[in-house]
């Protein structure tokens, strides 16, 4: 498991242990990766985070058009593995969790421990202000640094 911020590690590790999820990606609503577990290639992480953020943005807009409040989670059920996407609020802004799980667990277990992880993340988040947004001139360097931290190379 790799995380850009150390306070994310403990809640995420507990979630992985309790839920038996295969892959998890925590990202901001703009698709910036915060932490990941199970991915082996940076390209997969970047693609999954971009697609996950886009799906959440689409469903939230769909909810707005339908006059509903935000959807709690989107679950794609598959024959071999399933995927859950859920957005949640943290003191560091709105984040998205993308969880891939197989038949060794269930959507009920994943949702239950995901909600517990969100509670722990909200409680563990430092109260100081988040870092300023990345500037255009150092964006590529920051992205490269983040990917190195997330993949340990």
């Amino acid at each position, binding site marked *: 498991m790799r995380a850009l911020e150390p306070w994310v590690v403990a809640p995420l590790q507990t979630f992985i242990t309790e839920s038996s999820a295969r892959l998890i990606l925590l990202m901001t609503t703009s698709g910036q990766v915060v932490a990941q577990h199970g991915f082996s290639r940076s390209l997969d992480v970047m693609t999954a985070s971009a697609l996950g953020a886009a799906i959440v943005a689409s469903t939230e807009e769909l909810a707005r058009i339908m006059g509903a409040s935000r959807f709690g989670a989107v679950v794609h059920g598959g024959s071999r593995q399933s995927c859950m996407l859920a957005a949640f609020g943290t003191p560091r802004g709105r984040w998205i969790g993308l969880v891939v799980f197989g038949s060794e*667990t*269930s*959507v*009920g*277990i994943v*949702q*239950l421990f995901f909600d517990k992880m969100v509670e722990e993340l909200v409680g563990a988040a430092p109260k100081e202000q988040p870092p300023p947004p990345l500037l255009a001139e150092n964006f590529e360097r920051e992205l490269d640094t983040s990917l190195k931290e997330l993949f340990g190379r």
Partner: protein
Amino acid sequence: MTAADEALERVTQVPGVRGSLLISVDDGLVVAERLMEGIDGRAVAALAASLVQRLGRATGGAGLQSPKFVHLRGNAGSVLAARGRDDLVLVAVVDPDANVGRARIEMLDAVGHLA
């Protein structure tokens, strides 16, 4: 009243039963519930489904049939689960002094009547 509601009604009428749920064992989600305040149905459904599924795997691995009825006893009460058709499971949360024998009979009979 639906068959699911009838099943829940029968079980919750047993003295000492604090609530009952009909859950999907594959998903670990609540299909129908009748619970007293303070019981987290979603958590009960997810964990009871996991328990039933794992017990099924364990007994399968031992060359036995899946259990039709599970009684998980704790200090503050018990969780009972009766497996129905398809992937439905009827679950009851009961007090320590509940009439577990009657609850068992009602649950097994009720799941037998579920479509």
